């Protein structure tokens, strides 16, 4: 009997999507903007590829493996720079990770609220410092001090291949060691903010429960905090790695760029970094060499894109609370 009433005519169509023209326009615009992010990446890839294709085709894999850069003969190979970037980035990570994790632990678990806020603000400020300012500081203030550290390190631990140098006559400035420190200063805030976020979202009951069961701070850190947050920290470290590999200006001033490949002598004043190499060679380059530099940029872009993709995937997965 009521079925007739229930089947009364529906005046407004129920739909999941937007109906009016204005709404369609609204969502259409935002969707277009979102897809523009894809377009942007593809555009960058395409333009760089078109420009650098002749060079990459001519050099093949030697482009990333060989170590000759001779514009007169038309040979452009990037091996020392690529390896140098990795070396600096990896050592930078080795320096930055313990400091960043320590800072995040201090902020989240040890400091009272107010100092913690101040520390967080300072770390964010460090992240906002332009790289050219860090470069300036590295060249005039930090560099000479760190060169002193390098000298001491070489004096007492020189028997380790990592810290040995061929001769100490060239001094210890402009080495991968100092470049790594500069890179570390720039990625510490990145790793800290990711780690801090993950630490602060940790279930406090878990931590307090472990403490109540008689755990010490160290055992709680090792058994509770570390296993639950390790994944996210790795993501943060990867984000830092991507940034470290792409760092340009700051490294440019504190590193002696050299095609003579430096495998692992951190204190030797010669090294490589792709991004800085592009900057260094750009000024007086011929059109062909510019194409080679764009090929170098393409390599850099692909490497950092892969690392960043991986990093944001890991970070997002270890932060389920960020999903809507």
């Amino acid at each position, binding site marked *: 009997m009521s079925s007739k009433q229930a089947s009364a005519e529906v005046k407004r169509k129920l739909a*999941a999507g937007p109906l009016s023209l204005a709404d369609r326009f609204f969502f259409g615009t935002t969707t277009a903007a*979102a897809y523009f*992010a894809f377009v942007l990446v593809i555009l*960058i890839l395409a333009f760089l590829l078109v420009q650098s294709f002749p060079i990459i085709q001519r050099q093949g894999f030697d482009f990333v493996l060989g170590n000759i850069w001779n514009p007169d003969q038309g040979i452009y190979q990037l091996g020392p720079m690529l390896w140098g970037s990795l070396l600096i980035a990896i050592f930078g990570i080795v320096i930055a990770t313990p400091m960043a994790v*320590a800072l995040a632990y201090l902020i989240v678990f040890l400091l009272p609220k107010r100092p913690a806020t101040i520390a967080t603000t300072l770390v964010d400020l*460090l992240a906002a410092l332009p790289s050219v300012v860090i470069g300036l500081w590295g060249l005039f203030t930090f560099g000479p001090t760190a060169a002193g550290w390098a000298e001491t390190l070489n004096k007492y631990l020189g028997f380790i291949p990592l810290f040995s140098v061929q001769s100490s006559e060239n001094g210890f400035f402009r080495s991968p060691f100092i470049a790594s420190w500069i890179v570390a200063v720039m990625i510490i805030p990145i790793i800290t903010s990711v780690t801090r976020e993950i630490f602060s979202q940790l279930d406090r009951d878990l931590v307090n429960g472990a403490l109540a069961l008689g755990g010490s701070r*160290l055992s709680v850190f090792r058994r509770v905090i570390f296993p639950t947050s390790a994944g996210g920290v790795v993501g943060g470290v990867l984000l830092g790695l991507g940034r470290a590999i792409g760092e340009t200006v700051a490294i440019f001033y504190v590193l002696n760029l050299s095609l003579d490949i430096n495998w692992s002598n951190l204190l030797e004043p010669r090294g490589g970094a792709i991004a800085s190499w592009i900057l260094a060679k750009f000024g007086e380059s011929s059109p062909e060499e510019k194409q080679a530099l*764009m090929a170098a*940029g393409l390599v850099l872009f692909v490497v950092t894109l892969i690392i960043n993709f991986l990093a944001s995937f890991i970070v997002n997965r270890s932060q389920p609370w960020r999903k809507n």
Partner: protein
Amino acid sequence: MSESLQDSIKPWLRASKSLRPMILLVSIIPLPAVMISAYLLKIDPTMSFLTIFFPIQALGAAIIGYRAYGKRGIGDALLVVIVTFLSIFVMVMLLSVLWSVIFQGFQAMSFTFLSQNNVYVSTTTSLEYGGVGHAILGTLLVVAITTLLALPLGIAIAIYLTQSQSKVRGLVRTLTQAISGLPSVVAGLFILSVIAIDPLFQRSGLAGSLALFPLMLPTIARVAEEALKLVPVDLRYAALALGAPNYRVFFQVILPAAKSGLITALLLGLARVVGETAPLILTLNANNGTNWNPFEGGLATLPTYIYGYLGSNYTNSQSRAWGAALILLILVGILFGLARILSRSKSLKSKAKK
């Protein structure tokens, strides 16, 4: 005795009273030791902190930890000491950056330095002549154009990520994050490759702005997304249930509620690109004079100005670089501080509502 007994039955006390003087002692004793050893042995002071101060303090803390809690106290004490030491190390480096820029920058600072341009200035010209006026103008022009492009687009991406029901949102978010790690030099090379292909497009202020665009976009998109997420979803549902179309819900309900957050996104985006150097070096021709036209001719900006003077061996040139760095730092500081204040007042408001 009775006091220590009382302390021992209060396990929640972090450190009992009898231990406090010892903790103080251990924290202070290494300091003169470092000073004396640095003076006598002629060790570099920063080095002696690492090699003498830190081990003594760690040892002292471990002993106290052992006396207080037995074996497990050692690990705890070491953890706290190491964490504090490393954190202070980072803070010292940060303060060192700020201090050296402020200290050295002030020596170049004057009204002339702020207002004049770089024409007729050589590496040895006295600091009384010439300045960064043209570079400040250039930075403002370049960054303004970038903002005009990146702000609407970034907010549109944030709207897409928060308001739509699309299934590829996760992918867009990941991609935006991945772009935020784009090396700045690659952004410059991208514009350079466009210039190489299209002869009508020249190295100019506009090229510089376009090179900064991919760097600013993800920052704005991410922070704006966070801001839009903070608006209670009930507000949106209520407005929709009242029959408002989606675009009016956004402009009349969500936008006013998220206004300060979106301004924060703008400020952080500005802070991100205002100091970018590499893309501008690749896409801008340097210029010593004042240029009001960002579409033609060379344009000086603060970062490229610093870059130009940084490698010089002359004291005056270095002072100019420091001075420009100080201005850049002040700009970043203002942007950053404003963003802080805005986001803080917002969180206070939301607390008051609760």
